[in-house]
């Protein structure tokens, strides 16, 4: 029997029983589109995080106080035993002098109230340096960002977010005005462009002050975090070593900082999201296995519906292998058509998601698409074997009589 004829026979059988075929197609399509949709969520989240990270630039190191190898255990243990020394402004200035290090951006976040002519509002404060602007691509609406000051400079100047400017100054230009921030008076030198959540803060709700000023205002010894740019991609490793060495020297031989590079952070995220995506794929694959049992059921019905036909084919000289082949082809064709329908529906749903949340690049990974189709077709074949064998094992005399 020719392949073409076998496919045509299977196809005519599929068309002949439209309700049965449609039910099966829908079951398989649900399974396949579920795999696509769920994996696109995981993959979309991964892509979102990766792109956010990559927008930071390529040779970035993140330094935080305390030794923190994997999770929070090291930090907690360190805190309990009291061995963590603060990561001071002087530490940061020492790091700045390393030949491998280009810029040091220090952070100290906090909260305070801002007051201008009796109008008061609670806002976020972040003590930082002029390099933060470039790091996160911030735009300035009016005036300028923090100038290039020494890290320990405590000048009382600030840059305010868009929402703060609108609510406190309304239509007036805030640049050059003096405001109270907690107990201190500062002069506004700039207003940020509207940006929402960008980088580590909600720009619109934040007041940016020099990190030295913030240390004094919040009465802190230790910085919250530093983001350090190496001079080049090649300098990443020596810069990392230099940071550890310098801090160790300054902290009486204790290596009580954590240095993370972008790559290791990205790898961690990628691993986490890959596990998440695989888990989602696995959950969706269960629906494919369920569809497989439906294939078996429907094919068994097909065998009993077509008992006489099977008897006839046997009488006309159809071999056992031919009858098995015919039914397996039918099962495979049904599951392949179902898989294609599922791909179509799944991709349509994903495009819809992208329209609703344009910020996330939802996309089912290639491996999930291939795995979904392969699994649908192979479950069709595997679950089709039993019914096909049952058809081939029918006694021709009894089959011709319809039982």
């Amino acid at each position, binding site marked *: 029997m020719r392949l*073409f004829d076998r496919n045509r026979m299977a196809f005519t059988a599929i068309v*002949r029983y439209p309700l049965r075929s449609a039910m099966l197609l829908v079951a398989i399509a649900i399974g396949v589109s579920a795999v696509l949709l769920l994996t696109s969520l995981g993959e979309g989240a991964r892509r979102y995080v990766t792109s956010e990270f990559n927008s930071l630039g390529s040779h970035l190191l993140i330094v935080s106080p305390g030794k923190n190898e994997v999770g929070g255990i090291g930090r907690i243990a360190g805190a309990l035993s009291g061995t963590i020394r603060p990561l001071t402004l002087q530490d940061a200035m020492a790091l700045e002098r390393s030949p491998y290090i280009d810029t040091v951006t220090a952070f100290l976040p906090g909260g305070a109230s801002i007051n201008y002519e009796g109008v008061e509002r609670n806002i976020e404060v972040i003590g930082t340096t002029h390099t933060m602007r470039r790091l996160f691509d911030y735009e300035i609406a009016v005036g300028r960002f923090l100038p290039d000051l020494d890290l320990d400079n405590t000048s009382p100047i600030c840059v305010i977010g868009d929402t703060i400017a609108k609510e406190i100054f309304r239509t007036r230009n805030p640049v050059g005005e003096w405001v109270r921030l907690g107990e201190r008076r500062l002069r506004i030198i700039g207003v940020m462009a509207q940006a929402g959540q960008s980088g580590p803060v909600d720009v619109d709700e934040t007041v940016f002050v020099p990190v030295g000023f913030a240390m004094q205002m919040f009465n802190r010894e230790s910085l919250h975090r530093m983001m350090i740019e190496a001079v080049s991609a090649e300098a990443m490793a020596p810069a990392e070593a230099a940071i550890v060495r310098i801090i160790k020297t300054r902290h009486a031989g204790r290596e009580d900082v954590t240095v993370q590079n972008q790559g290791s952070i990205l790898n961690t995220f990628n691993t986490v999201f890959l596990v998440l995506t695989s888990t989602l794929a696995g959950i969706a694959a269960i629906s494919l296995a369920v569809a497989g049992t439906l294939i078996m059921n429907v094919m068994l019905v097909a065998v009993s519906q077509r008992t006489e036909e099977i008897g006839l*084919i046997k*009488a006309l*000289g159809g071999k056992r292998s031919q009858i098995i082949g015919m039914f397996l082809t039918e099962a495979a064709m049904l599951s392949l058509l179902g898989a294609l329908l599922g791909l179509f529906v799944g991709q349509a749903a994903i495009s819809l998601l992208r329209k609703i949340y344009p910020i996330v690049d939802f996309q089912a990974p290639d491996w999930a698409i291939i795995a979904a189709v392969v699994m649908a077709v192979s479950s069709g074949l595997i679950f089709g074997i039993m019914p096909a064998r049952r058809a081939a094992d029918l006694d021709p*005399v009894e089959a011709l009589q319809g039982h």
Partner: protein
Amino acid sequence: MIELKSICRDFHVGDEVVHALKDVNQIIEAGEYASIMGPSGSGKSTLLNVLGLLDTPTAGEYWLKGRNVSHLSDDELAATRQAVIGFVFQSFHLIPRLTALENVELPMVLAGLRPSKRRDRAVEMLVKTGLEDRMSHRPDQLSGGQRQRVAIARSIVMRPAVLLADEPTGNLDSHSGNEVLEILEDLHNDGLTLILVTHDPGLGARAHLRLRMMDGEISAERNPNAKRNSTGGVEEQVDHSATV
């Protein structure tokens, strides 16, 4: 062509053993027109199934075209059916979703013949059975007599040596029944060995060799008006070795 030697076929029904065929010996020559008659339960269907290689005898030997086919595997049986035997059934057994032409093509599809070749042959057979203007009709668009003619076209498309017709007119009115019978007898006149199962004595009488089944036993009678050169009675026939 066909030689049955001490064929027995037993069925187990519960604890009982039913002897559907008891020591059947019979020769059917090539080109013969034979009828099998008998009441229901007499074993005539079982005999037809054995002759058609759809069923295998419990004991005895069945020689078909000089070959012992009593102990073939399922696939060998299928191949032999395909090459040697054509079937016409009382209930036609056409595949409803295929056209008349496609139904006739089916045996050649199973045999793996080239599409162009089998189309020509299928058309030829449909012309032969007078259905040239019904080729693209589906079975449900055809009358009973037309359906049976499609089935006959299908049965001869592989050029079998033996045609087994099981009550071919049983589901037809007398007019279409006569048409079908004429076609079958024409095929016989062209040299095909025709074996007709019927309960209608009038039909059975038209055959040259009349086989009568009764309680699993066979008796044969030759029509004195037979045109064909006959070898005489049953006992004489058994003496022949398998003739092809």
